């Protein structure tokens, strides 16, 4: 996030002079340089912005879509509910990354925008289930019944009464979702199916890193550590939120 303030080197700047490529970590380049002589620290930090933006951005869209689908399914029930939940079953019947790869193949050429589309298209199921469950149980609660008796229409009830009470589990699921989005994006980019050069991505950097694993291991080490720490932090935050919001998870 703070990449522009933290580093002097342009992540895309290619060092002049042949001696600078794949340089070991030094004071000038704490993480070393890559095959084109670009400063790795700068690249890792800038790629972090991309990764975090994708993780959060996808999750916001996923949460919106999942909320709408989950609320509609849980609150109205009936045939609509059946259709939506069977769809969820089918999407969840796929190992997620495999289906994501299959969806990427539909597009003519890969890119980060496609990754966003694919992750949103596949990611909503968890949230939809969580929200649906909450909506189902809340629908019959006294205060919702009371609101209905007072003449509130469905939309008011959903927005004012059902949604706020589903917020806790939603928040936990969404936080954990950010981490898995970031891993999925890195995985797809690593396979060459996500971010394309010159777009920065930890996954794409790791693909470079593999090429030079024996001659310049630092190219592979640092982006991976960054990804690991980011995901670990987000997962811990999610676990913490769960402990905080859901009394059942207390030991």
């Amino acid at each position, binding site marked *: 996030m703070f990449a522009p303030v933290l580093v002097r080197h342009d992540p895309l700047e290619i060092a002049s002079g042949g001696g600078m490529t794949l340089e070991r970590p030094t004071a000038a380049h704490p993480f070393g340089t890559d095959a084109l002589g670009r400063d790795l620290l700068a690249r890792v930090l800038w790629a972090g912005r991309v990764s975090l933006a994708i993780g959060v951005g996808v999750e916001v869209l996923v949460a919106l879509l999942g909320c709408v689908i989950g609320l509609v399914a849980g609150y109205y029930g009936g045939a609509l509910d059946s259709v939506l939940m*069977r*769809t969820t*079953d*089918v*999407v969840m*019947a*796929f*190992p*997620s*990354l*495999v*289906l994501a*790869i*299959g*969806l*990427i*193949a*539909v597009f003519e050429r890969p890119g980060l925008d496609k990754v966003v589309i694919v992750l949103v298209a596949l990611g909503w199921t968890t949230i939809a289930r969580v929200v649906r469950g909450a909506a189902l149980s809340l629908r019959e609660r006294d205060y919702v019944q009371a609101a209905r008796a007072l003449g509130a229409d469905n939309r008011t009830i959903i927005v004012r009464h059902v949604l706020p009470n589903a917020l806790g589990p939603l928040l936990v699921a969404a936080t954990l979702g950010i*981490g898995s989005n970031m*891993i999925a994006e*890195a*995985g797809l980019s*690593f*396979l*060459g*199916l996500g971010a394309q050069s010159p777009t920065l991505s930890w996954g794409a950097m*790791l693909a470079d*890193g*593999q090429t030079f*694993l*024996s001659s310049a*291991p630092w190219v*592979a*080490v640092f*982006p*991976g550590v960054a*990804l*690991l720490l980011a*995901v*670990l932090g987000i*997962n*811990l935050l999610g676990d913490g939120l769960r402990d905080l919001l859901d009394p059942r998870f207390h030991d």
Partner: protein
Amino acid sequence: MSLTALRVVGGRVAAVVPVAFGVTLLVFLLNAAALGDPARAAMGQRGDPEVIARIRRDYALDRPLVAQYGAWMARLARGDLGHSYHQQRAVTEIILERAPATLRLALAATLVSVLVGVMMGALAARRPGSLVDHVIMATAVLGISTPVFWLGMMLSLVFAVTLGWLPVSGYGGGDWQHLVLPAVTLGALHTGSVARMTRGSLLEVTRQDYMTAARAKGLAEPVLLIKHALRNAAIPVVTVIGIGLADLLVGAPLTETVFAWPGLGRLLVAAVGQRDLPVVMGAVLVFALVYVVANLLVDLAYLLIDPRTRAR
């Protein structure tokens, strides 16, 4: 097996059928969306009229979508997944050729995750709150958060590139040395979950009355742990192994790419790069159906281990 048990098993199997159909429908729609113009799909640059005609015929492209799905399903029922654009061979043949490598890797990875995971969990549960417990649980959380392909690269860096103990990549004609690193990598993701689950359920079990009774009988701790605790703790662990299937199948394309393992995952990734749609869709379909069936088997195993689930 009693009649009720048969009915329960039958119910589980029947519940899977609509999901399996949904899976084929979704793959078909993906295929239809990707095909778009068959001339473009068949190699793009130089569309051989003969190939285009065959695709048109194979996919019944002149007819409505429902008829296309029917034709596609009829071919699928015969085990026909179409022809690869890139290799000029039947997709089914290519997939069958690659499947054993992935199966071997998946089994080895499961073995790693269960053995190491249960050991870690049991060790941690012996003295809850101790340093050993904390270190093991921290390792487990770390393992769950580590991107599988990066872990593979790091293991390869340490054990293959630096120490030279194991080969960097490849299949090596099927010897075990080539299997170790990919299996550990693919298994690692899941080892953490198994360890956490084992620890949790062991702690739960050791609090039960029958454990106190067995201890009062004077049974030695290891006997106690293996005979009484582990067996009862096995039920949730089986569930976790089932959930782990997803990790295995998600990790397969990544792990196989890192270690140049000639399995289905790498086939899928390569086929996307070559825009070889029949192979892509065939591999996606096989992965999904394997996942559905494996989940069903885990479900049924659950019925076998835990008599209580049979009653429902």
